C-alpha cells in the first residue's frame, strides 16, 4: 500500500474525442487557475482503466470529473452524483478495455475492500466524435465546473487558492487547448 492521498481529484475521458475530454481539461484548468492545498492530488486519468486502481485505492476521498449523459438535458448542464450513484457510474465508465477497473473494483469488493465514498461532478456533453476541442456550450460551462470542484473540495476541508493572474487572463479556448492538457506547451508556440 502506498501512503494515503487525503483528496484525489480525478478527471476521466478521452481528450481525442471532443467533449469526452472535459474531465481531463477540467483538471488541467483547476491546476492552471488554482494552487492545490496540501493533501490534494490532481490527476488526469484519461481512459486508463486498470492503472487507476492503485490511485483510487490509496485515496481517502475522491472527486471524479467526467462527461455524463443525462436524458433530455442540454449540453453543458451540470451533473452531480453522490454515493451509490457514483459507484455505479464509475463501474460503467472505467471499462475502456474488455477488462476494466469495473471488474477490478468488484474484485476489490470480492477481496473484502469496501469502495470508499466518491463524488462525481460533470457536464452533459454534446459532441463525442473524434477530434480535439470542446463544443461551445461545454466550453462556456467549464469555468463554472472548476468553481464547483473548488466548492466541493472546500466542503471536504481542502481550500484551493486562486492563483494571481498575470497581466492578461488567457482566452478560455487557449486555456482548454489539448496540447496544454497533454503537457506539450512549449515556449513560442
Amino acid at each position, binding site marked *: 500500500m502506498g501512503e494515503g492521498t487525503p483528496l484525489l481529484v480525478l478527471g476521466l475521458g478521452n481528450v481525442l*474525442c471532443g467533449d469526452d475530454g472535459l474531465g481531463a481539461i477540467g483538471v488541467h484548468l483547476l491546476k492552471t487557475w488554482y494552487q492545490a492545498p496540501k493533501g490534494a492530488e490532481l490527476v488526469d486519468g484519461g481512459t486508463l*482503466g*486498470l492503472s487507476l486502481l492503485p490511485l483510487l485505492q490509496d485515496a481517502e476521498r475522491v472527486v471524479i470529473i467526467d462527461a455524463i*449523459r443525462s436524458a433530455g438535458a442540454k449540453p453543458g448542464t451540470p451533473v452531480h452524483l453522490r454515493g451509490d450513484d457514483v459507484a455505479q457510474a464509475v463501474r460503467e*465508465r472505467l471499462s475502456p478495455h*474488455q477488462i476494466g477497473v469495473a471488474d477490478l473494483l468488484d474484485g476489490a469488493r470480492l477481496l473484502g475492500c469496501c469502495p470508499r465514498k466518491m463524488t462525481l461532478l*460533470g457536464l452533459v456533453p454534446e459532441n463525442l466524435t473524434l477530434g480535439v476541442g470542446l463544443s461551445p456550450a461545454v466550453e462556456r460551462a467549464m469555468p463554472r465546473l472548476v468553481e464547483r470542484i473548488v466548492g466541493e473540495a472546500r466542503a471536504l476541508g481542502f481550500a484551493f487558492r486562486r492563483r494571481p493572474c498575470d497581466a492578461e487572463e488567457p482566452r478560455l479556448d487557449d486555456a482548454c487547448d489539448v496540447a496544454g492538457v*497533454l503537457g*506539450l506547451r512549449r515556449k513560442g508556440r
Partner: protein
Amino acid sequence: MTHIVVDPVTRIEGHLRIEAEVDGGQVREAWSSSTMFRGIEIILKGRDPRDAWAFTQRICGVCTTVHAIASIRAVENAIGAQPPPNARLLRNLIIGAQCVHDHVIHFYHLHALDWVDIVSALSADPAKTASLAQSISDWPLSSRAYFTEVRDRLKGFVATGRLGPFANAYWGHPAYRLPPEANLMAVGHYLQALDFQRQFIRLHAVLGGKNPHLQSFLVGGMATPVDPDSQNSINAGTLAELSKLVADARDFVARVYIPDLLAIASFYKDWASTGSGVGSYLAYGEYPEGDGAQPALFLPRGIIRQRDLSKVEPMNQEKISEYVKHSWYNYASGDDHGLHPFKGETVPNYIGPKPPYERLYLDRKYSWLKSPRYDGEPMEVGPLARMLVAYASGHPRVKPLVDKALATLGVGPQALFSTLGRMAARAIETQVVAEKMQDWVDEMGENMARRDYRICDNSKWEPSTWPAECWGAGFHEAPRGALGHWVHIKDGTIINYQCVVPSTWNAGPRDAAAKRGPYEQALIGTPVAKEDQPLEILRTVHSFDPCMACGVHVLDNRRRELVYVRLV
C-alpha cells in the same frame, strides 16, 4: 443454418462484432467487424512530430505506452535521432512491464472466465482444491484454509446479487469442463493476480513518476535523468526497487501462471486443434539489444508462412499494404488495390446500415478496420506469432520452454497453431520477458558504474536539423501484437500519419481478393454447442486478446448488458 451475431465481443458497446453462420454445431462462415470509427491520423496532420507520441498515447487507455513507443520510434527513424543505451534499456523495461502486466490480466481476468466456471467453484471441496494446487506448484498460498476462505468469500459475493465481473456469463454451459476444485483454484488465483498486477504496475511509477500517463518519453531518448547521486533520478535505489518488482513477477509467473495454464489446458486439449486461423505469422520483433539503425532484437523479427516452422523469412516493411474493399473508407485510386502506410489515406465512407440494425451488409463494406496484408497475405500477429518466430529461429530460451510445454501436454508443434496455442504462447512469453527484465536492470547499473548517464540524443531536437522532407517507420511489439506507426514529415510538421495496430491485422475484414482476416479464418470450424450461448466463439476470439478501445466511453445511466447475442 443459423446466423449468429455476437456484439460486443469485448465488454464495450459497439467495438467488435462477430457475425457467423452456424450449421450442424459448427461455425461455417464468419465476419469480424469493428463498428467504431478510429482516425488518429486526422488529428495529427499539421502537428509537430515531437508531440505525436503524447496524442497517440491517448488512442487507447490500456495501450498508452505502446502507442508512445511506436510514435517516438517512427519520428526518430525519420529524423535520424539515435537514443543512447540507457534510453533503450529504460524503454525495454517499460515495454517488458507492459507485456507481463497485460498478459497476466488477460489470462486471469478476461480469458480464464471462458474456461473456468465460477458457479461450479462454489461446490468445490477446499481440501481437494489444496491438494490439486500443491500437486502442480510449490506456491505457498495453497492451503485448505486458504481455499476455504476463497470459497466462502465467493459465496458471500454471489449472495449480494451484484455479480460484477461474473455477471452475464454462460455458467453451467456444457463446454465448461474443469472439475469444481480446478475452478476454485482458478478463482483463488484470479484474486492473487489482481493483487499482483496492482503491485507490479508500480514499476511504471518508479520509472516515470506519479502521472498515470507516462510523461517520460522524448524523441531522441527519455526525459528521466540517470544519476546515482540524485534523489530525483534513476539511481541505485531505483534499480534495487526494480529488481524487487521484477523478481516478484518472475516468481508469480513461474509458480502460478504457467502451472495454471498447463492445468487448464490439460482439460481442453481439443482446443489445440481448434481455432487455427490463417497460419501465417508476422512479428516485428522487440527489445533491441544494441544501438544503431538495425540492432539485434531479443525477440526476433520475421515472417512464417503457412505453418512452416522450418524457415523464417525476413520482414520487409515495404510489403505491407492496407485494403479497404470491405472497410468503410474510400481510396482515391479505387478500392481494389492496397496502399502502403506511407501512402495511406483515411477518408471515411460509411455505407453500412443505419443503426439499430440486425445485420451488416456483409457482401459490401462492413468494418471500420482496414485489412492489412503482407505481400498480399493476411498475417496473424501477437504472442503466438512472436513465439513461433522465436521458436523457429531457435531462440535459446523460447525453444526449450515451448518444447517443455508441448511435452507436458503430450502434443506436437502443430498444436501451437490453435486457440490453446495462443494461450500457451502468451504464458511462455510472459515468463521469458519477466526473466529477461533483470538483465536490463543490471545493464543500467553497469552503465551507471561506468558513469554513462546519457539518456537522450538532443542533436536532432531542433527541426532545423531535419531534412526538409522525411519519412519514418516505428515498429513495436505491443502485448497484443505487431504495432507500426508511419510518419511523413515536411518542413517540420506532420503531412501524413498512419497507425497499423495489432487488432487491425487480426480483426480486419476480408480484402479485395476476398481472403478472410485472422479472426474470421480462425472461427471456421469452431464448435457451437448452444447457438444462443456461443461460448466457443468467444474462446477463440478472446485468445487473440481483442482490443478496440480507442474511442469514446461516456458515462451512461442506463445499465447495459455486457454481451448479448441475437439469433437472426
